[in-house]
């Protein structure tokens, strides 16, 4: 094992701790929202009863898209551009995005693949949308997205520097967890054990998160040097869209073979295990209409997308680009997408990633706690603020998120829009939690109160769903609505976990405020040239 000089070690340690302190809470929000969004399809069904899976065959694409496009369009003219995110494995919903033509500005909707019922997607608000936007701070627009990318980049720096400082003790630290020792030793042990367990996971998410957040910026030099400044061409090369192809205008449309369902079926049979993911219709209803079908090879984590392009009016196949011949950029970018969105291992992988994301959140919090604990005797305002923000923003996310779920089914009618209501409940309650943490004298009590409140509110989530929709867990189970049962059971498990944490938090045993003797000890160790971290390492 390589050993580092004392100077390298100290500098790496400082880089790790400062990076962690600066980005920690924001990264915590990214990991928690990311963990929940692994189940965004299930949560969407939970919050929108009309999108819940019901028995029966999947409706045709024409039947699913027709009412949406008819509703959005005015007169007989359809929208000029339609993007369809095809449903997965019978549980997900169809996503429809339409713009141009008589539709005007962009609109999107989710459609139940069995019943054909659809709901317009709110721009902000609603559980999944709020969590989704918060995952990359899109409440602040593009700057929020870039900020999330920068946080991902610095998370990568934190992972590299953290691994470097612990490299020669990695195996030893992995097997060392001493919760009965002093609090700072226990926090440090937990930080190192959980960090080591989640190291590949955190590295992958920091890397792919940095890419997805910053892609709009990092693609700029490539677009300007290689694609005449066209970002669309970069994304096309990266496999998000099919290659450009000339579409000739025709006089008459073919009576057969041009429906979306037929084109999707032809694409599905184009290559073995090809799984169409999206369909894009350009110039819909026009003589030069074109339909792109883009998909991946089923079950593979690494690899690019393949695509077929059809003439929208005649159904003629204009281009065929198999996934096996995807370019290097397509493979690299699409593999990152599949890894980041956990699209390759089914439900078991999503549950594993969910647990690892929670463990990663715990790594961030234990890092903050370790930092604060070794500086407990230093009476510095910045440490006090960090401690209170950690309690309010991180632990306070539990009751705020539970209230967000409850607000979907318990909302006042009339006075405020549904979107505004969920935003008000989530961000308002989160802000109150931060305020509560800032004014209460005992921070340990704040953690316990917020954990307990979050736990109780989470236990109410199945109750709210049952009372509002009649879909109690046993009813949903009998009807085969696994997504609803999953969210209800997940909420109960999370609630019990939060209550367990609150009960296990010994507030009485929390260290008392520093005494004069503690401060003299601190001065003595400082005078002997020993920093708080060195004292901690000696203890460890």
């Amino acid at each position, binding site marked *: 094992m390589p050993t580092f000089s004392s100077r390298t070690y100290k*500098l790496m340690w400082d880089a790790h701790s400062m990076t962690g302190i600066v980005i920690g809470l924001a990264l915590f929000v990214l990991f928690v929202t990311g963990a929940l969004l692994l189940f965004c399809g299930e949560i969407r069904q939970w919050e929108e009863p009309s999108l819940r899976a019901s028995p029966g065959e999947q409706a045709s694409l024409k039947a699913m898209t027709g009412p949406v496009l008819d509703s959005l369009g005015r007169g007989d003219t359809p929208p000029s551009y339609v993007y369809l995110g095809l449903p997965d494995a019978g549980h997900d919903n169809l996503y429809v995005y339409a713009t141009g033509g008589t539709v005007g500005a962009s609109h999107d909707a989710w459609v139940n693949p069995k019943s054909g019922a659809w709901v317009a997607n709110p721009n902000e608000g609603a559980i999944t949308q709020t969590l989704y936007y918060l995952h990359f701070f899109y409440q602040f627009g593009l700057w929020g997205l870039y900020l999330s990318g920068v946080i991902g980049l610095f998370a990568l720096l934190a992972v590299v520097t953290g691994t470097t400082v612990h490299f020669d003790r990695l195996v030893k630290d992995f097997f060392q967890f001493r919760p009965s020792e002093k609090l700072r030793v226990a926090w440090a042990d937990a930080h190192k054990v959980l960090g080591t367990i989640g190291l590949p996971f955190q590295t992958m998410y920091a890397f792919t998160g940095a890419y997805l957040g910053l892609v709009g910026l990092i693609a700029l030099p490539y677009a300007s040097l290689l694609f005449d400044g066209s970002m669309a061409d970069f994304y096309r090369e990266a496999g998000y869209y099919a290659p450009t192809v000339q579409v000739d205008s025709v006089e008459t449309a073919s009576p057969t073979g041009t429906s979306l369902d037929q084109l999707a079926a032809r694409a599905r049979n184009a290559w073995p295990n090809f799984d169409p993911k999206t369909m894009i219709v350009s110039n819909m209803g026009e003589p030069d209409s074109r339909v792109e079908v883009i998909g991946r090879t089923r079950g593979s984590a690494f690899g690019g997308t393949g695509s077929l392009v059809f003439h929208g009016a005649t159904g003629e196949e204009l281009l065929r680009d198999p996934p096996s011949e995807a370019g290097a950029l397509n493979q690299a970018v699409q593999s990152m997408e599949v890894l980041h969105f956990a699209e390759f291992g089914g439900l078991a992988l999503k549950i594993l990633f969910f647990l690892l994301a929670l463990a990663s959140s715990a790594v961030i919090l234990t890092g903050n706690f370790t930092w604060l604990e070794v500086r407990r005797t230093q009476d510095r305002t910045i440490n006090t603020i960090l401690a209170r923000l950690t309690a309010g923003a991180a632990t306070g996310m539990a009751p705020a998120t539970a209230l967000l779920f409850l607000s979907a089914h318990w909302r006042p009618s009339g006075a405020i829009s549904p979107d505004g209501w969920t935003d008000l409940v989530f961000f308002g309650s989160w802000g109150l939690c931060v305020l509560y943490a800032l004014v209460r004298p005992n921070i340990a009590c704040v953690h316990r109160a917020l954990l307990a409140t979050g736990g109780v509110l989470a236990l109410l989530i199945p109750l709210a769903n049952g009372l509002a929709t009649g879909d109690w867990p046993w009813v949903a189970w009998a009807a085969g609505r696994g997504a609803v049962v999953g969210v209800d059971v997940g909420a109960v498990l999370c609630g019990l976990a939060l209550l367990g944490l609150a009960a296990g938090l010994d507030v009485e045993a929390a260290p008392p405020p520093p005494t004069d003797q503690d401060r003299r000890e601190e001065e003595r160790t400082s005078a002997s040239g020993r920093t708080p971290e060195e004292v901690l390492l000696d203890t460890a």
Partner: protein
Amino acid sequence: MKYSWTPIEVWSRTGAVLLASTALYLAFCVFCVTGMPVGQDVAVATGVLIGFPVWVGAMCYAVLARTALRAWGILLGIAFVLGGCAALAHAFL
């Protein structure tokens, strides 16, 4: 903090971490697409995949360099060399 930082060192190294490493990253990306003797597709993929490790590596170097001035000098120096090679390749290849 384990290391004794002076305020000037903190700010100048932080600047090197944020700015000089970004300059190196950009120069690396441009070099990949203009100076590497591979296809356009592989060049962009290399820039995307290796770019982040280069960026983070440059950040680590900015922290570890003997002095902040050296960190700025080395990182910008490499960036200029890469950028120069990219410009030459763009002009003559």
